[in-house]
């Protein structure tokens, strides 16, 4: 029997309020109000509450925990993801996966944990005036979060889906490496994307958030932060709308939060949208701009042997080879990984319909998928997307795919087919509506060269939303400074993936953990006037 630490904590008296159950308006007073409970919000909540500050967390999604995680896609997507895992960009060209529950995207992510690549940090120092962002000065913060979340290279054998990437790359002389994962006692089940049923995944849901709640933090769920109230110098309060139990429609009740300091951690898309709704000063129109996605293209192979991509740690092998075959600001580079393969994700992703689609589904156990995550934001032809608002105030990301990105997408489709054939694939189906399963590399290459690269023809997805409240030393090009402090409101910080001025070039969670740990510790010191607990070896 797995202990549901959340249910247990709630019983023991944690201050958790489900706003959908309110029968009148509510007021909350705190030292710090944090919007969002994902990678940034969770990390900040633990550090600020450990410093003795009274913290309130405001989360739009529900509180769900191990005993609710039944490993069923039909339950997990509507309950734990933004827009039932079908969030789209404005022209519908890209499907975006983002979490929407306590723990944010960390509750459903795939556990890959990388430090921010040194070349990304170098670019930030040069282009955005962030001298504090060196691998050496950040190392203690990354090390602290690696310890906190038990991050280690995956020690068990990769599952067969990952092993195809390893084998195929090895045949071509391409180096692959083992992915570090934030797990403790992982059962190797493969259902990280539906909420870990064993509490092995060290997401915010089972680590930092319980620790903040133990220290008296207040958690408000099914509560959507609608608007920050600004008096010309600082934020005076936050207006929060209660949602109904299902989280789609709004309840008649609202919550007003007063705090000394406000932290936005609603994720890239969520945080810029809240700033836009609040109409805070934005003299250079930077809010929501330069939103990045690591746009992903996919390649589906049918292997002679069973792969069972639904089973086993979803991501354990990667290669950065194609990030380094050209300069950082040259043609776009990409990281190669694999995704888990479950029926709904597969069926909605696989191209075509009718008999051809059914044939692919009937060979699902032999299916193998490689994904290429393109490193956007380092070239003048890759300015990312921009977040705007629907008439009802909800966010809308416009991300036009430029020819620069399409060129990389075509290259990536080719690379993935090469690796899959090298690993012995019977056939390879690039995820493009014009494709059919190809039985030789030659046939696949010819087809890929000729594909019209257009949205809703080439399948493009993303699970890594970054930017939109970019940091930097120049208010003309940035929303926050290098500590995440907002340039135009005194008591407002942004601590999440939205502060990155480019994409990361690696799965972003550890970048968010480490950088938030640094910035939240500084904020704790500023608010308490006392030194906060720092990692022993941190110098700045």
């Amino acid at each position: 029997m797995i202990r549901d630490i959340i249910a247990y904590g709630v019983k023991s008296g944690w201050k958790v309020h489900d706003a959908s159950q309110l029968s009148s308006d509510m007021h909350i007073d705190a030292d710090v109000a944090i919007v969002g409970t994902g990678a940034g919000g969770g990390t900040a909540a633990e550090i600020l509450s450990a410093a003795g500050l009274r913290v309130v967390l405001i989360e739009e999604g529900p509180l769900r925990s191990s005993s609710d995680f039944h490993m069923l896609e039909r339950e997990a997507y509507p309950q734990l993801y933004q827009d039932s895992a079908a969030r789209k960009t404005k022209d519908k060209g890209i499907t975006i996966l983002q979490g929407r529950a306590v723990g944010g995207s960390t509750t459903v992510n795939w556990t890959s944990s990388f430090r921010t690549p040194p070349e990304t940090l170098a670019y930030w120092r040069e282009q955005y005036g962030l001298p504090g962002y060196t691998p050496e000065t950040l190392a203690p913060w990354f090390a602290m979060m690696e310890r906190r979340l038990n991050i280690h290279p995956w020690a068990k054998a990769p599952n067969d889906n990952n092993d195809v990437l390893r084998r195929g790359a090895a045949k071509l002389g391409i180096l692959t490496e083992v992915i570090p994962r934030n797990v403790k006692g992982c059962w190797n089940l493969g259902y990280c994307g539906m909420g870990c049923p064993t509490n092995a995944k060290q997401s915010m849901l089972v680590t930092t958030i319980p620790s903040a709640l133990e220290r008296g933090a207040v958690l408000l769920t099914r509560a959507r932060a609608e608007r920050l109230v600004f008096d010309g110098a600082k934020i005076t309060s936050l207006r929060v709308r209660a949602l109904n139990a299902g989280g789609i429609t709004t309840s008649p009740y609202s919550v007003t939060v007063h705090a000394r300091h406000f932290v936005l951690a609603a994720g890239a898309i969520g945080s810029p949208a809240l700033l836009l709704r609040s109409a805070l000063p934005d003299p250079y129109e930077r809010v929501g701009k330069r939103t990045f996605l690591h746009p992903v293209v996919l390649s589906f192979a049918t292997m002679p042997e069973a792969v069972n991509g639904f089973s086993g740690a979803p991501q354990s092998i990667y290669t950065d080879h194609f990030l380094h075959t050209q300069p950082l600001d040259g043609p776009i580079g990409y990281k190669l990984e694999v995704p888990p393969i479950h029926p709904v994700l597969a069926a909605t992703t696989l191209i075509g319909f009718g008999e051809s689609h059914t044939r692919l589904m009937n060979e699902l156990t032999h299916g193998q998928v490689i994904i290429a995550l393109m490193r956007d934001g380092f070239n003048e032809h890759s300015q990312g997307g921009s977040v705007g608002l629907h008439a009802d105030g909800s966010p809308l990301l416009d991300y036009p795919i430029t020819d620069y990105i399409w060129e990389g997408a075509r290259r990536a489709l080719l690379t993935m087919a090469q690796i899959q054939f090298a690993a012995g694939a019977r056939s390879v189906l690039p995820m493009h509506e014009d494709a059919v399963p190809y039985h030789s590399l030659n046939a696949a290459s010819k087809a890929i060269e000729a594909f019209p690269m257009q949205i809703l023809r080439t399948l493009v997805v993303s699970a890594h939303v970054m930017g939109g409240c970019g940091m930097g030393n120049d208010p003309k090009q940035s929303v926050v400074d290098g500590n995440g402090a907002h340039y135009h409101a005194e008591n407002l910080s942004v601590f999440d993936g939205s502060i990155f001025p480019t994409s990361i070039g690696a799965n972003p969670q550890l970048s968010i953990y480490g950088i938030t740990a640094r910035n939240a510790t500084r904020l704790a010191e500023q608010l308490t006037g006392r030194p906060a607990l720092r990692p022993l070896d941190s110098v700045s």
Partner: protein
Amino acid sequence: MLTRRQLLGGGLAAGAALVIAGLAYEFSPDRALRDPHYRFVILDEEDRAIVAAIAPVMLAGALPAGAVEQVVRGTDVAIAGLPLHVRAQIRQLFGVLRFPLTRMFVAGIWHPWHSANAGEIAAFLQHWRYSPVVQLRSAYDALHQLLMAAWYGNEQAWPPTGYPGPPKVG
């Protein structure tokens, strides 16, 4: 392409009552799929006839006899799980498919849905899938995602795929 009448008729008028009916299921999509007294949240009879006509073509070779009803209900549940602005767009799509003139001239379906034949429906899907008009490609994509999710979320769909279902834990 959409007339004002369709937007209002298909999109908004039916809204409020449906939203209220939907609240009960917003909370538990899983229960909605099993409830013997399920009340449709989004799709009315005419919409359901459209899904019931498209499903056997979209899922040809995958749907056993009698399973169409599962897909129709699953589609309703899936739409009910989407934010209101997305639901409104899907209502517009159904508006186009319902209104005889757009059904004929935009979708190319010359018979009412219940008597449209499989070849005609396959041609319609294929036409939208490769349309130069990006909105039609995205409408195809929406139908693809909804119906695929509605079927493959079900245990019933799994045996032919070899997916054993989730492992036992605890």
